[in-house]
């Protein structure tokens, strides 16, 4: 069985979590891995339906996502969590619970996120129509030591994806895409060398 693990994307709304996580998932599937994305917005329509945005409800939501990630990970699946997950404590709780946990911080200045405002929610939050909105009327606690920091306002999307995948390779969760092996020429060179050295 392949080794499962969790990649946890955290960051403000519109910081690029969903976009990058989907592409990372696609890349990992290409490498033959089983991947499941748990996107915060989607989870709130089923697994966490009915939960609000108080700190308590947010923590429950993140722990639920973390719990599913843990189950998937221990069964050889790559679980990708993509949720604002604004509180450090509960993110760290998930890290401890899951163990094989890679935190990806989508770092993007609030003003850029507001400008992007894909769902028009920043506008409403700024107008006071949505309470407890992260970055506007609710805090976001930056990760202190994430495995990867993506500066999604400065990087191309593909750069961000490559950064995550490279880190997963370095952390030995994922094998490099191109199987590195001797080319025929290299094989011949090393055979000759070992022959010269007297090994063969």
């Amino acid at each position, binding site marked *: 069985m392949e080794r499962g693990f969790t990649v946890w994307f955290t960051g403000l709304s519109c910081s690029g979590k969903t976009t990058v996580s989907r592409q990372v998932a696609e890349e990992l599937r290409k490498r033959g891995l089983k991947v499941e994305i748990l996107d915060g917005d989607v989870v709130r329509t089923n697994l966490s339906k009915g939960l609000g945005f108080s700190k308590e409800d947010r923590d429950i939501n993140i722990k639920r996502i973390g719990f599913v990630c843990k189950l998937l990970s221990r069964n050889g699946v790559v679980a990708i969590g993509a949720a604002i997950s604004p509180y450090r404590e509960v993110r760290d709780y998930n890290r401890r619970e899951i163990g*094989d946990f890679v935190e990806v911080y989508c770092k993007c200045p609030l003003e850029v996120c507001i400008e992007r405002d894909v769902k028009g929610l920043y506008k409403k939050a700024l107008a006071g129509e949505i309470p407890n909105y992260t970055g506007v009327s609710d805090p976001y606690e930056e990760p202190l030591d994430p*495995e990867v920091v993506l500066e999604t306002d400065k990087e191309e999307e593909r750069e961000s994806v490559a950064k995550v995948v*490279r880190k997963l*390779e*370095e*952390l*030995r*969760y994922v*094998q*490099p895409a191109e*199987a*590195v*092996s*001797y080319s025929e020429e*290299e*094989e011949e*060179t*090393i*055979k000759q*060398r*070992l*022959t*010269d*050295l*007297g*090994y*063969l």
Partner: protein
Amino acid sequence: MAERVLIFGLDCAPPDLVFDRWRGDLKNLGRLMEQGIYGELESTIPPITVPAWTSMMTGKSPGTLGFYGFRNRADYSYDAMVFANSQYVREDTVWDILSRKRKRSVVIGMPQTYPPKPLNGCLITSFLTPNTTCQYTYPPELKGEVEGLVGEYMLDVENFRTDEKDRLLRQIYEMTERRFKVAKHLMAAKPWDFFIVVEIGLDRIHHGFWKFFDKDHRKYQPGSKYEGVMRDYYLYLDHQVGEMLSMAGSDTAIMVVSDHGAKRMEGGICINEWLMDKGYLTLEERPREVVPLSTVKIDWDRTTAWGEGGYYCRLFLNVKGREPRGTIERSRYGEVRDRLKRELEGLTDENGNHIGTRVFKPEEIYPVVKGIAPDLIVYFGDLRWRSVGSVGIGSVHTFENDTGPDDANHSQHGIFIMKAPGMKARGKSSGLHIMDVAPTVLKLLGLQVPEDMEGKAIEG
């Protein structure tokens, strides 16, 4: 527990030279021995660079790793051999495990790391790399950093089986100097929790200069200008180790290890000549000169077994339904193999003296046997005699190596020295095995030892 672990890998260092003969001269290694524990480190069967170093770094036996030497049979055809490069290492190394725990490693000169795989840290491959035009580092940009520092990085000497001893000696020193210069640079410039540098120069100097210092060697020449070469190089290595030790903090655990030891070589047993004499191997035509077995036509229909040369012998049986032109009925496999084992164990030297050959069956020495293992693994004269694979020699015994001058053979036990923060134990330890090193590193760093590691953490 230690904050960091620093390992010096001295390829081929034997216990008697380090622990006894030159202990008083090796100030730094001697001090480590005084301040910690030391003992003989039992190597893998076979005690060869590949698979020994990888067994050490994975805590797994060659059977589990599925490779038994530099080249291994890819299938049961007669000529498909593949190099056991990094792609064949499918078990977790120490740095794989540490990478997942976000700990950083610096790995220099470890065999079977080419082509380099990513890791959390940096890696320079070993002498088993085609050449320095290849990508021999991870990350790739490290290559420029290395070459900016030392010019051409030397993965190995050009040829250690040579009579040009001055050139060989010069190359060994140049190579070692550059490697340690890079090691010291990386030690200071990169963050690390685990650092290992493997120096192959010691193995090369043993093979090239053993006969000059060992008075019991058949070819010992008294008063040679090379008599002190080996001792000098040991002192030089000790000095290099000392410089790196002075850079390591007191929170660093130190180990000095070798993958196997060395002993003088008495001569060679020409395995295929022996097999031919006994009627186990038939050539279509006997060669008139000394040539590798792979270059002559074998009459497979009249062949029971063939052997490979090296520091030990790999013997393969020609089995019906397994090899393309097998001759041994499967039902007789055990019987034939046992007979060969008995006869090999009875081998004598050229004067008829019993030499104490040891013969192993893979399934009896490994918990599992993956890949294609030799049918028998043979230590001629308990490794005092090399296996010579060439044919055309015309005798079973030879004192001229078919692959060039070589004075030393490998021995079963290497060295282990450990000093760790808070460690109370002192003195000589026994029962240490090469597979114990990986679990010991993990334990020192406060990590859990995976259950499938076959070694056990060495208590300090």
